[in-house]
């Protein structure tokens, strides 16, 4: 239960970090909050040759809320984002991520790159159609210093499999963008975990927009724990543009279950997870509609 040997790097700025990552390629790993990577090192599931600790890159700890949405830097920790409360759905999700002590170190961007199919924040990024900004070193033309190139990957393309993201060797996720909500929109996050603070057996976040007559005009859910990546389902049609009180909830639950592909394990069978996801979807959409109505 101790990490294997590795070469430790503590870059002082982004350029230095990208240079080390470029040199290390697939043998390098980024260390952010360490709340997932260090358990993996301790259990020897991960054994990188080079560990690039980004904890000294203070410039990456920003949390910027603008009219279009929220940009969180790679060093913004769960607890800091929870406290800054820049987006209602992020706060609802963060309260369900592990325990407060883990949230003091773990980062939002680290959680996205880690891409655990049971994690809350990837589902939030996916349901909101957010994106992750990846940076890598761009070798300078002859005589010029190296530069930085970035690319923005939308959530739909970012999560590529269980614990797999579009971040390639040599790339650093510098920030993530969570789009703001339209007017008359509410959000909610519901999940069931074996113990408080554990990864959920299944979970659903919902984003619901009402029209002027308080009928549901748009409803999307992001599901956790029922597939290799977050499962986003548009349930607008299943809600039949009705007010929440008369929505045919069986139809909503059915639409979500149709898209879910849960696996069974010691914690819950696939059938139980499938049952849960429908129940949680109904609860989350109801909660979000209530919030949207104000």
């Amino acid at each position, binding site marked *: *239960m*101790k*990490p*294997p*040997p*590795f*070469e*430790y*790097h*503590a870059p002082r700025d982004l350029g230095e970090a990208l240079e080390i990552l470029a040199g290390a390629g697939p043998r390098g790993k980024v*260390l952010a909050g*360490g*709340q997932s990577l*260090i*358990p993996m*090192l*301790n*259990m020897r599931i991960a054994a990188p*040759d080079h*560990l690039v*600790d980004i*904890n000294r890159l203070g410039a990456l700890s920003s949390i910027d809320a603008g009219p279009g949405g929220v940009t969180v830097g790679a060093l913004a920790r769960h*607890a800091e984002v929870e406290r800054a409360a820049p987006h209602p759905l992020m706060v609802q999700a963060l309260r369900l991520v*592990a*325990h*407060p*002590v*883990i949230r*003091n*170190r773990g980062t939002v961007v680290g959680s996205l790159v880690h891409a655990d199919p049971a994690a809350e924040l990837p589902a939030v990024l996916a349901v909101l159609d957010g994106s992750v900004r990846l940076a890598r070193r761009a070798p300078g033309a002859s005589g010029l210093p190296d530069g930085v190139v970035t690319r923005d990957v939308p959530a739909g393309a970012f999560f590529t499999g269980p614990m797999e993201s579009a971040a390639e060797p040599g790339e650093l996720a510098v920030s993530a963008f969570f789009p703001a909500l339209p007017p008359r929109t509410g959000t909610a996050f519901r999940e069931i975990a074996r113990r*408080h*603070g554990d990864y959920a057996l299944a979970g659903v976040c919902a984003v619901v927009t009402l029209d002027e007559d308080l009928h549901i005009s748009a409803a999307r859910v992001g599901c956790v724990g029922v597939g290799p990546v977050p499962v986003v389902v548009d349930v607008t049609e299943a809600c039949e543009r009705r007010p929440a009180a008369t929505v045919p909830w069986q139809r909503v639950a059915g639409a979500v279950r149709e898209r879910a592909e849960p696996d069974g394990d010691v914690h819950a069978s696939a059938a139980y997870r499938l049952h849960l996801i429908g129940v949680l979807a109904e609860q989350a959409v109801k909660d979000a509609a209530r919030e949207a109505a104000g």
Partner: protein
Amino acid sequence: MSTGTDSSHEITLGVNGTARRVRVPGRRLLSDCLRHDLGLTGTHVGCEHGVCGCCTVLLDGRPVRSCLMLAVTADGHEITTVEGLAGPDGMSPVQRAFGESHALQCGFCTPGFLCTVTALLEENPAPTDEEVLEGISGNLCRCTGYQNIVKAVHRAAELRAEES
């Protein structure tokens, strides 16, 4: 700080108010650095994957898992371990409340609870029952059944209020 393949690094940790210089390999966990390199065995190690909370220490005043942090990452930071909770006048209110309320039996989990609760009351001096449960939910105790730990947190809040 020098680097090299698993080479050692000279770091300075502010531990319980004293600057401690120590040489550690990159892979040394903060928990092991405190226990083995600095001889501060009050910080206990249970699971080494973040679940039990026994290894919780304060990093710049905030509770963190010392088993999920490399000692080199803590270079230049202030750490408070259970050994640093008592003041010049003796045990801290949280420590006394745990004793008074019988909030420990074997004591293995206690250093982690004491650090967690010290920070909890610093941030929220009069927590509700629900806030106490949320605050200590990341610390496991195999002996007490938690009831007396919850009582101790409320008692510690009282003692802090009386003494401030």
